[in-house]
């Protein structure tokens, strides 16, 4: 056969690359129920769609070439639900998937192609950080910082990270820059490993305490969803991407509406008649959006606000909903951050935003002030002012104080709808009477009741409607119908915005 030797060499090099770090290391992962880097790609991508880039790349240092198959990071293109994506899967069996000059080139190439060709970019994270001795000294520094755009995030295409093992270095950095992050419980993520940290500070630090799933889903907010297995994580990545376009020049995909979606449900049963009672706003979300379409992000972080992707009439929407179940809906600093970053994501990928409003104001107190609450509030207002995708605000119950604006009040939305139960005061009316008039129910019951009635009327949606500050007052059972109609109007020529928050910081 012609070229037999060369083809034989191609075959043997291919087999060598596919063996990754060797059977012993792969077997250990199988015993723990953890997928390897290539298996993850098989699960993530449509069948037989993976086109590898750099299978035969090796470390630049001659003494480790023999064991640096694909230089520890497997890169390439594939399809998810028929749409092209670029992907980097860290192979921990090869030198801990440590970052090096050559695999850095692979990441750069994937990043550049994804940006240039409008493809989502997916990082499957599990890496031990920078490779030593490659990164040491002057020669090590000469490998760093060669690409001034390495950490530039312009949200031209969605970036997604799945944290599937110990993540230090590049797996952490790209997670922070991603639009969506899923983490397998048991995986960890930090600036440095617990071993290095414990040595550096002479104090033992547990890996979970340093950067486990609870830390990142509940405290830092860097992780959107935590799952139990690699397979679940990869399914969640596919699900997230199904709501988004491939890039910022496209409209989000529109899908068929599941049967039963138009059933108004028990929306009136969910909202308590007593203003003192709370409820879980997610039940209202479920009754408004297409059946089973609500995909919540950061459920364990900043809980007084619920954010998530959903569909209404087959169109992707971003839901920002106050949740009275947590802190009575009073908006704390984490919720402010969460809302702001969610607005940025929706706007960058042309996803209309629906606010569902029931909030008693910002959570006040020393704790919030120490965390720069006023700064976060203004960041949010700055962001909402720059967002150009359609914004529709539904005031369900309370919308007190300055937060009225943050939740899309006034001209901060393109449409404001009110339920008859809307309350546009600055504080609960029973407190308001005392604060404004210094009148108490016990001392002057008649005058108190009169002033209370006046305050309740002033705070009702009717004066707001008379002043055209709410464009519609609707029966709550018509919320889905009203949103469908308004989305028909505002999305009639697509929802591609002006992307004025495309360079917004990724964490702050």
């Amino acid at each position, binding site marked *: 056969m012609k070229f037999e030797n060369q083809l034989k060499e191609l075959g043997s090099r291919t087999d060598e690359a596919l063996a990754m770090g060797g059977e012993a290391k792969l077997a250990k992962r199988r015993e723990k129920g953890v997928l390897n880097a290539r298996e993850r790609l098989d699960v993530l991508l449509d069948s037989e769609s993976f086109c590898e880039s750099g299978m035969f790349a090796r470390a630049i240092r001659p003494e480790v070439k023999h064991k640096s198959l694909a230089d520890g990071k497997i890169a390439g293109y594939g399809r998810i639900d028929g749409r092209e994506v670029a992907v980097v899967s860290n192979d921990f069996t090869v030198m801990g998937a440590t970052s090096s000059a050559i695999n850095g080139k692979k990441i750069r190439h994937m990043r550049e192609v994804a940006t240039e060709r409008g493809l989502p970019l997916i990082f499957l994270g599990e890496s031990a950080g920078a490779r030593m001795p490659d990164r040491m000294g002057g020669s090590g520094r000469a490998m760093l910082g060669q690409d001034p755009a390495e950490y530039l995030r312009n949200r031209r295409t969605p970036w997604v990270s799945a944290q599937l093992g110990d993540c230090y270095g590049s797996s952490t950095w790209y997670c922070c820059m991603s639009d969506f992050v899923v983490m397998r419980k048991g995986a960890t993520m930090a600036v440095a490993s617990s071993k290095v940290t414990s040595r550096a500070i002479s104090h033992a630090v547990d890996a979970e305490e340093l950067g486990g799933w609870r830390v990142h889903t509940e405290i830092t907010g860097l992780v959107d969803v935590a799952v139990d297995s690699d397979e679940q994580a990869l399914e969640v990545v596919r699900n997230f991407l199904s709501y988004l376009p491939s890039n910022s020049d496209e409209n989000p995909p529109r899908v068929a509406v599941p049967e039963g979606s138009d059933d108004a449900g028990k929306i009136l049963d969910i909202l308590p008649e007593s*203003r003192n*009672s709370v409820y879980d706003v997610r039940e209202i979300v479920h009754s408004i959006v297409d059946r089973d379409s609500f995909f919540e992000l950061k459920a364990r972080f900043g809980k007084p606000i619920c954010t998530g992707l959903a569909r209404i009439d087959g169109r992707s929407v971003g839901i920002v909903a106050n949740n009275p179940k947590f802190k009575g809906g009073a908006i704390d600093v984490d919720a402010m951050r969460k809302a702001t970053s969610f607005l940025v994501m929706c706007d960058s990928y042309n996803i209309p935003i629906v606010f569902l409003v029931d909030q008693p104001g910002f959570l006040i107190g020393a704790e919030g002030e120490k965390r720069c609450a006023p700064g976060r509030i203004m960041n949010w207002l700055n962001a909402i002012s720059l967002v150009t995708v359609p914004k529709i605000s539904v005031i369900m119950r309370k919308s007190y104080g300055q937060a009225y604006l943050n939740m899309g009040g006034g001209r901060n939305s393109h449409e404001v709808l009110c339920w008859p139960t809307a309350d546009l005061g600055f504080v609960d009316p029973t407190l308001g009477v005392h604060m404004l008039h210094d009148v108490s129910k016990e001392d002057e019951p008649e005058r108190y009741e009169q002033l209370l009635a006046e305050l309740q009327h002033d705070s009702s949606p009717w004066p707001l409607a008379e002043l055209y500050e709410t464009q519609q007052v609707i029966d709550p059972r018509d919320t889905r119908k009203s949103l469908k109609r308004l989305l028909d109007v505002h999305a009639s020529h697509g929802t591609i915005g002006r992307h004025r928050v495309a360079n917004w910081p990724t964490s702050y």
Partner: protein
Amino acid sequence: MAEITLKSDITGSVWKILSKPGDQVSEDDTMMIIESMKMEIPLSSTDDGVVKQVLVEEGSTVTEGQPVLILEI
């Protein structure tokens, strides 16, 4: 068995305690109701587990971040 401390996420007063030591609870079950801003706000369990100790009484005031219940998970 690991222990988790549930903390009040709001400043207010304890209106109703709905759990006691030994109770088997699930994630999201309401452990107590705290009254604040004229609202009755549930404090939910963050995990499945067993109530080890309730650290507050009905009527007591609580501050944001104050430990109120210990759960064994």
